[in-house]
């Protein structure tokens, strides 16, 4: 995802093209939102709200960070608010774990299966842990950038990352061998 070009800030309302703005950042934001909330419909709603807020408050962007980073900050705030609203829903974690770690598909592990299992495992993490994993491994942010984006110290980011990786390790089937180079056997084809 790092290869997506960073677009410069909109200078003025009259020269600002909302269509171009949405085309440049909409899909990328949607993918990040999908990983954050694990549901495409919710991700579409969150990105819709993010882009509306961003376009309405485009003058608030001061150019201190990349435009996408600023947009992603708005998305993170909306995701947190959404997550707080959803907190009342209680899942039966044991049932989900059984479903995730069921070895019946272990023989025909393919790329899509691995990707789906990892996304499902991501949903078992706490919101803070999921956030740092996505910022680090999907958005390719440095520790310092994650600290700035999430509003916590670098030490906290490192600690969260450490525990998030350990938790993720528990939730991912061991047959996938994520920690061995080429373990999921899908690196070369993507």
């Amino acid at each position, binding site marked *: *995802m790092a290869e997506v070009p960073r677009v410069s800030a909109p200078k003025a309302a009259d020269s600002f093209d*909302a269509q171009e703005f*949405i085309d440049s950042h*909409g*899909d990328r934001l*949607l*993918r990040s939102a*999908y*990983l954050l909330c694990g549901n*495409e419909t919710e*991700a*579409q*709603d969150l*990105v*819709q709200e993010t*882009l*509306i807020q961003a*376009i*309405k408050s485009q003058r608030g962007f001061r150019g201190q960070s990349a435009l996408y980073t600023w947009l992603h900050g708005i998305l993170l705030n909306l995701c947190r608010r959404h997550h707080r609203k959803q907190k009342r829903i209680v899942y039966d974690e044991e049932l989900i774990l059984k479903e995730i770690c069921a070895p019946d598909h272990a023989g025909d592990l393919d*790329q*899509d299966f*691995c*990707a*789906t299992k*990892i*996304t499902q495992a991501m949903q078992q993490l706490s919101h803070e842990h999921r956030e740092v*994993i*996505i910022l*680090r*491994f*999907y958005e*390719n942010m*440095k*520790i*310092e950038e994650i600290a700035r984006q999430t509003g916590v110290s670098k030490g906290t980011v*490192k600690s969260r*990352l450490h525990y998030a*990786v350990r938790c993720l390790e528990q939730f991912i089937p061991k047959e*996938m061998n*994520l*920690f*061995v*180079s*080429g*373990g*999921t056997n*899908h*690196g070369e084809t*993507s």
Partner: protein
Amino acid sequence: MNCENFNDRLPEYLDEALSAAEKADASEHVQKCGDCRRALARHEAFAKSLRLSFNRETQGLSLRPETRRNIFSALEPRGVLLTAWAYIRPFIEIIWRQPAWTGAFLLCLLLLISGSIFYRHPMKNTVKGERNNYVINVPLQTEIYVYRRQNNLVVDAVVTGTSIADASFSENVRPSTSSRPHVN
């Protein structure tokens, strides 16, 4: 640099955020220590697997046409009435969904407002607008006189007894009566 330090500085090492001296130390340690070399390889393999899985899982996603339409319709300029309705509508929805809570809230609000209007402090009951207003009752002995009268003129007075009555002194009521006792 030992293994513990290296593991602690691993994220910065991967970010290339270490100083030149620290980076040289870390590189030297990795070359010498097999455990840390394996830990580094393990971390990089994990990161690569995650990236590829995330990309694969999200590669077909794009904004729906209705999402785009919603964004543009939200950005269209509206009239005053429509804008006002957009602000009022959430409140009406809350009232519609939670009538009991809304009723309880309105009742509490009504009690609060009526309490603030009708409540009067006990110290404010004598003279309106004056502070530190108080009344002291002091028992005072008085004498009872019998007057002898001649041609409608009082010529003599004889004390026939005494009685005790309360004398009230009030402060800040009126300057003319403040120092004069009032015998009940």
